[in-house]
């Protein structure tokens, strides 16, 4: 009874002001809750991101030994395939080596190499692709032997194109062969950096 009476008197004096205050409090609460919820969501996402990042980092660190082993293996493999390249300080010099090697190959099957024309090298990541057009005269069996042996040559040579013509169609014995061949020239680290 007394409490009710006190309330009634209080609101008779202050009217709707307390309601306004309460609404203001509720508004503040709403703002606070909204702010807190925004922060909560943001932190939740941040934590999820950090946890994922942490997990990935830990996993990567856990793989370090495997990665080092893989790197060693790759480096050995790279060294191996690079050893079949044409080493020269400049790609232009490597093309000359490619032409010389191709001429050696022709000579090894007793053919007759007589022309080698360098083509523009293509520089890639860590190596340059060198190309040259080579012309030689061989017999059919010699050409077959040459093309057969080419993949097994000490230096890796790829025949990009091949043009065979028979000078005397009535007697197809000697062939005139024009081939575009390519190899790789590993670029020294310093030269690659300059590029």
């Amino acid at each position, binding site marked *: 009874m007394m409490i*009710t*009476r006190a*309330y*009634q*008197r*209080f*609101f*008779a*004096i202050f*009217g*709707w002001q*307390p*309601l306004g205050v*309460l609404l203001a*409090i*509720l508004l503040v*609460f709403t703002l*606070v*809750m909204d702010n*807190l919820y925004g922060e*909560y969501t943001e*932190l*939740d996402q941040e*934590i999820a991101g*950090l946890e994922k*990042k*942490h997990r990935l*980092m830990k996993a*990567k*660190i856990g*793989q*370090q030994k495997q*990665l*080092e082993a893989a*790197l060693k293996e*790759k*480096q050995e493999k*790279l060294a191996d*395939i690079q050893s*079949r390249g044409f080493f020269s300080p400049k790609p232009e010099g490597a093309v000359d080596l490619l032409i010389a090697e191709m001429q050696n190959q022709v000579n090894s099957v007793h053919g007759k190499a007589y022309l080698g024309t360098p083509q523009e090298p293509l520089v*890639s*990541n*860590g*190596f340059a692709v060198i190309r040259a057009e080579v012309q030689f005269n061989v017999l059919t069996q010699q050409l077959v032997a040459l*093309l057969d042996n080419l*993949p097994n040559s000490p230096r890796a*040579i*790829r*025949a*990009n*194109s*091949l*043009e*065979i013509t*028979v000078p005397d*169609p009535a007697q*197809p014995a000697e062939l005139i062969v024009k081939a575009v061949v*390519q*190899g*790789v020239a590993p670029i020294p680290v310093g030269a690659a950096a300059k590029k």
Partner: protein
Amino acid sequence: MKFQKLALLIEQAHITVSLWTFGLKGWGISRTEKVSLPTTDPLADQVLAAIRPLVLKWGIAPDTPVMTVVPAGVGGFLSFSLPVTAGKDLDTLIDVEIGKSLPFSVREVEKSYQLVKEKDRVRVSVLWMPKLWVNELKNALARIGLRLSELFHRAQLVGGELGGTGDFAASPWGCIEQDGKAIHFHFFRMGSIVERSRSLVFGESGRLVQELNLDLLSLSCIDLAPRRIFLAGVEGVLSNALVTQVEPNKKGSLQTYERKLGLPELLLALWKKGGSGVWLVPDRSTMMARLTPWVIALVAICTVAAGALWWTVLGQREQSSQLESDVKKIKSKFQKASSVESEVIRTQLEINGIQAATRPGEPLAALYEVFKALPEKAWLISFKYDEKEVAVEGYGVDGDTLQAALKTNPRFAGFEALTPQVAVDGEHNPFALKMKWKAAPPAPPAAK
């Protein structure tokens, strides 16, 4: 909630009527006017008759609450103390005490009381008014649609004006005020707690002095002799009589007081400070009063929810900073592992590039496939190969026959017959063909 209230100050021979309105600064007095009364002891109907023209003139809305300061002689104050242990039975004990002090039943009075805690007792200061008088006024006002809501005593206005100032808050004091022919003696226990209040008709000054001396004597007996007595609006003759004839030991404490606010303003100030008169509880409580517990509960729930969310956010912040520091700790190791991984990828790309650049071409394979399709008596005089295309020219078979033979080989497609560049020898047909060459599919990766 009404945005208007009417305040009636019923004094000797007139009523001061004020209209209170609620604005941006809260409640304030918007209009005040005095209306005359036919007698000094007005009846409810006379009060109604006096204020009706103003109510109509001001356009007071129905059900407007009316605050009233009762005229002198209506009701009064009682003061007594009860043991602290009274507790929840306090209401009953107060009723008993009122019944002892008044010559009629407690059911016949409207009352309001204030409690002041003393050492081991509770001092109760009761304002009472005859229910009959209150009901008459209430019914009279109801006839013009007004609602009597609260009744104050004149002594409360004086107490509200001076009670909170100086050293009156803790010591007894008094006030003598004059309103026309009425003289009011108000004595306060402390602050605004009224000890007693009575009104006398101004007649012979000697009699008033005698009455005052009697009051002071009785107050001295209960250790409530006022330290200071204010004279508010007291005429010079009476003032001189009081100063010269009041008991010598009280002379020094008599002091003339110039009232700064009118009584309507004092009533508003008292009401705004929460001063309570006899307040008539309406049959229906206000909506706000009904809603309050729910609103408080809602606020409490919101607070708890906000607190819980805040707690969670604090935990999240801690977890986030912990994770950040963990990430920082392993960052250098991670960067090292990452650089190794990048190196592995870079090396693999280089290996792939070199392998792609040095993969053996297929001119010999293309040549073999063409030879397989050639009849025994046919021969080539030209063979062109450039990875994607093969062109052949020769003798010994016509182009259509050779094309039909080559079509059985899935590595050839897109045949195009060319005009032979060689002369026809009359014995053997020449042929010239161009076709697409499909590279061999890449070998499956070797098992690890």
